[in-house]
């Protein structure tokens, strides 16, 4: 896994490595070998993107933390030089303005409109409900034939049901929003497809917000509708925010449930520890380690420099794009000993799987809770759970902005 880079002097302009980079065959969990080699040899390096641009890829934990916490680094996707993941994202940058592509102080003002429901105690209060949904989905799995696609049976419905409830989106519409959202976050979708999916979702959410304006309920869309009534947000802004919360709320956790299960099945000693523990703290520790180990947001955190910044022996000039690749940061041996080892007993809380800085994931308490419930339940209820296919046969989401598996056929001994 220690591939060496082309021997170019820092000044020489050889062909730049392309980003995103392919993972090594047979190593579905490890960050790509080229990214790991850059991490060792040139932790702040230029890479080539789909559009020919050459932003900086930052691969070391300490540099990543410094940059993501640095106000000279901008998240505004409409700034020139911003490294867009695809033509679709570039096309959408102006249309889909939410707090994740704003800088402070505007970012803080808007983000705070939606932080309340994700407070630790409010999320903790949702635990019994999330446990009940999880138990119900597993009951259905156990009552049916095998093999089962764990993505369809549990990984996707659980977070979708929960985010629907929290937002006030009817779950009956899940086929529609899951389909549109998978177009949205696939980097091979064309610009037209991305814009179309985004428009469809935003129109849908705007309709729901209009409904909540007329008939408020106890959910987040109603709270956003209240902001619209108070003149703090336009209806379209509220709908944009709704799309963000809906997509981020189900795609990410779904992938962590499925990919985490693959990782645990490949590490049976670790799975056994998790299955046998009675300690919720041990489950919580395992969740942090799986978040670190898998770092499913694998297209990097995208930024652009507002001023010249010296970092890792390089100077990033104002207006140049920055990609913070937390996959290697979370496998940085300076911070996590033997990073390539999945060790659910380690203290991995300093990982940056949720990002770092003011844009760190808003929904992290909910994601943690859902993962604690699923990881703490699934393997106890189905102790003989195993893959129904070879790991090399699994369809990994190499083309997704979020990593995972499209399908996860599993079986068990009844």
């Amino acid at each position: 896994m220690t591939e060496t880079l082309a021997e170019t002097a820092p000044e020489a302009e050889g062909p730049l490595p392309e980003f995103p980079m392919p993972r090594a065959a047979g190593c579905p969990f490890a960050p790509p070998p080229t990214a790991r080699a850059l991490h060792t040899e040139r932790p702040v390096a230029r890479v080539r993107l789909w559009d020919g641009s050459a932003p900086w890829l930052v691969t070391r934990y300490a540099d990543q933390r410094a940059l993501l916490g640095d106000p000279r680094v901008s998240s505004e996707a409409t700034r020139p030089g911003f490294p867009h993941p695809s033509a679709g994202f570039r096309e959408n940058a102006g249309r889909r303005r939410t707090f994740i592509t704003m800088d402070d102080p505007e970012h803080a003002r808007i983000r705070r409109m939606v932080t309340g429901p994700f407070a630790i105690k409010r999320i903790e209060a949702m635990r019994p409900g999330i446990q009940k949904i999880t138990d119900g989905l597993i009951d259905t799995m156990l009552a049916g034939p095998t093999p089962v696609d764990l993505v369809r049976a549990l990984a996707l419905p659980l977070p979708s049901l929960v985010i629907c409830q929290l937002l006030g989106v009817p779950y009956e519409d899940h086929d529609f929003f899951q389909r549109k959202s998978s177009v949205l976050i696939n980097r091979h979708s064309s610009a037209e497809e991305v814009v179309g999916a985004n428009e469809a979702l935003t129109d849908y959410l705007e309709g729901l917000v209009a409904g909540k304006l007329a008939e408020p309920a106890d959910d987040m869309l109603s709270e956003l509708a209240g902001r619209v009534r108070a003149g703090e947000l336009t209806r379209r802004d509220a709908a944009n925010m709704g799309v963000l919360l809906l997509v981020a709320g189900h795609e990410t956790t779904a992938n962590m449930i499925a990919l985490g299960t693959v990782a645990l099945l490949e590490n049976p000693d670790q799975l056994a520890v998790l299955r046998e523990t009675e300690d919720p703290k041990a489950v919580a520790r395992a969740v942090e380690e799986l978040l670190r180990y898998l770092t499913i947001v694998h297209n990097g955190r995208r930024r652009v420099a507002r001023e010249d910044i010296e970092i890792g022996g390089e100077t990033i000039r104002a207006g140049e794009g920055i990609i913070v690749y937390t996959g290697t940061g979370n496998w940085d041996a300076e911070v996590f000993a033997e990073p390539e080892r999945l060790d659910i007993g380690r203290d991995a809380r300093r990982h940056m799987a949720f990002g770092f800085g003011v844009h760190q994931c808003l929904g992290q308490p909910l994601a943690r809770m859902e993962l604690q419930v699923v990881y703490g339940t699934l393997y106890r209820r189905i102790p003989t759970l195993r893959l129904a296919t070879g790991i090399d046969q699994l369809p990994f989401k190499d083309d997704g902005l979020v990593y995972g598996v499209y399908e996860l056929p599993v079986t068990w001994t009844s």
Partner: protein
Amino acid sequence: MSGEGGGSRKGEGEGKGVTMRVEVDVPKCVASGQCVMIAPDVFDQNEEDGIVVLLDEQPAPELHADVRESAVVCPAAAIRVVEK
């Protein structure tokens, strides 16, 4: 600024007589809730928007390690720890 980013890194000296003072920068807080998860006796969150509420400005020595960890993981560098 990035200079403040790391929080307190003082690892040792948890003996008697070490006093700790905690400060939170409320405008900086992004409500990630990690401090509440790690040190719930010291930090809480406002019901409305999840912004940090400091419960204990001078936590007892047995809480110091958790408070330091909270400062390290705070994504917005909104927790400052002063130890004497």
